[in-house]
């Protein structure tokens, strides 16, 4: 944020984060996104109080019941309450989104910044590695990784992280490449700062905003990917109430109990929408041009 003149300064709050906050308040989409995510976090934390039934309690005499006042979203093929399972599933989706994105951002930051900062032969090798990983469609790569290390929620998190880091690494690399020849870095270096100080204290903080935006959008993608892997039978195992694994049986019962397919899907969409709205909003607020 640059101030053009002293006159303007009077009208604009001096604090950078205050400006961001004011811009954020004006962005309705971002607010809606944030509210959705907050509701989701709330649901996850207080699932025990919100859910009317247990997520694993089976009651075969009540199987495939259509939505009613007792079972808001109906019951599944084991007579479990779908609404309760969706409530408990919120924290699982959040866990997958946050952990897998966190790990892949971390890998991306390390590889991307090393590659850009040190350059030379190391950079060339890492760029080829990124190109190679880029050629794998994420869904296929994560599918294969889960299939190999065994289907479970943790494998899904690892697989998603290993499939998505490249986009963050490329982003960080591009950012640092454009920053590292700036004058202030030269000044810092001439003042005697060593490589790690320059990289961690002066380059990364300035390169991180686009990564925050990409990571917000990435969490939405990670949640969709988890749902897809679970749908393919390569995700959380029963009785874990992951939304994706709830959908994996839905196809079989599409005639008999369509609510099995409808509600977990809507829950997933609302969640992903939350992250996408917040990510799009942040991008507009920070005024970042990103390649889609």
């Amino acid at each position, binding site marked *: 944020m640059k101030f053009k003149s002293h006159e303007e300064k009077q009208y604009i709050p001096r604090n950078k984060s205050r400006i961001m906050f004011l811009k954020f308040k004006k962005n309705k989409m971002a607010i809606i996104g944030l509210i959705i995510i907050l509701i989701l976090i709330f649901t996850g934390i207080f699932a025990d109080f919100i859910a009317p039934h247990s997520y694993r309690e089976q009651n075969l005499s009540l199987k495939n019941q259509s939505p009613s006042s007792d079972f808001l979203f109906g019951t599944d093929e084991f007579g479990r309450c779908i609404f309760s399972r969706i409530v408990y599933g919120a924290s699982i989706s959040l866990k997958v989104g946050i952990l897998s994105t966190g790990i892949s951002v971390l890998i991306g930051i390390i590889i991307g910044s090393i590659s850009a900062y040190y350059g030379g032969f190391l950079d060339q090798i890492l760029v*080829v590695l990124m190109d190679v990983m880029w*050629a794998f469609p994420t869904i296929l790569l994560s599918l294969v990784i889960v299939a*190999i290390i065994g289907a479970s929620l943790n494998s899904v998190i690892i697989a998603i992280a290993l499939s998505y880091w490249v986009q963050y690494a490329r982003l960080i690399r591009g950012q640092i490449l454009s920053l590292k020849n700036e004058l202030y870095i030269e000044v810092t270096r001439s003042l005697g700062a060593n490589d790690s100080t320059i990289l961690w204290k002066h380059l990364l903080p300035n390169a991180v905003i686009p990564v925050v935006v990409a990571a917000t959008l990435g969490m939405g993608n990670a949640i969709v990917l988890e749902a897809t892997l679970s*749908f393919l039978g390569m995700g959380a195992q029963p009785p874990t109430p992951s939304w994706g694994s709830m959908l994996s049986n839905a196809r079989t019962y*599409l005639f008999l109990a*369509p609510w099995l397919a409808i509600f977990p*899907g809507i829950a997933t969409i609302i969640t*992903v*929408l939350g992250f996408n709205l917040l990510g799009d909003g942040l991008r507009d607020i920070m005024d970042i041009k990103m390649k889609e």
Partner: protein
Amino acid sequence: MINYIIRRLIMMIPVFILCSMIIFLILHLVPGNPVDNLLHPGSPPEVRERLIKEFGLDKPIYQQYIIWLTNVFKGNLGVSITEQRSVSELLLLKLPNTVVLGVVSFLISFILGVLLGAVSAIKQNTIVDYMGMILALLGVTVPTFWLGLMLMLIFSVNLGWFPISGYGDLKSLILPAFTLGLAGAGLIARVTRASMLEIAQKDYIAIVRAKGISNSQVIIKHIFRNALIPIITLLGLRLGWIIGGAVTIEIVFNRPGLGRLLTDSLFRRDYPVIQGVLLLLVFTVMLGNLIADVLYAYADPRIRYN
């Protein structure tokens, strides 16, 4: 231009070899032997050893890799462990289904996406624009397989217009292709809109307008044509996404294809088939990236020369 294409093709070779190495390693560094899936419990250890020898699994891993890679370049992808067929035979059998699904949904997503994006850009900040962009946002939000389930629920279960699964005829292709096409259209619409709005602000558009050329001419001839460049790049990159999407869509609609072949082989740990499918898909994605770059270089000559 030809020089550029040749240079890019040569650059593909090391990347392809590295891809093959990654595919091979992630499958072979895992504990457990694929032949164990073949054996009945209680079959004598000699049988197991004979099978391991037969598939060459007793050799050191780098030797296995080199043998496999040389065979790949000779066009021999090995023999399926669980089915008595060569991998190339299986691939050729399943490929047409996936190609048809991929190509049709690719076209649907391109046409719908560009139309939606262009209309939104022309009607910027009107209700049409907002509706269009909400649709596009849903396109990037809704999981593809769930969209498939819902379309199936509406058009097959409730209305009975299309078969719930199957393949071969046009009728069974429509739902899967539209699922994938609709899901893909969202991103293309957003890029089209952003790109057109960016071009519309350029000075030369103001000059063209000042010359008195009609609005529709300006939009079609000057804005739209220039806005196509990022869309073309996106299309090449979308190939990988379409391939990934086809895998799930084939499962949803129970269509035989490469996606089904891959997931079935993953469950059976049929390594030669998994390797073959992955190699073929990765090669397609690389080809898509190459085509995108070539089209881009064709549209913007500055790129060819650096």
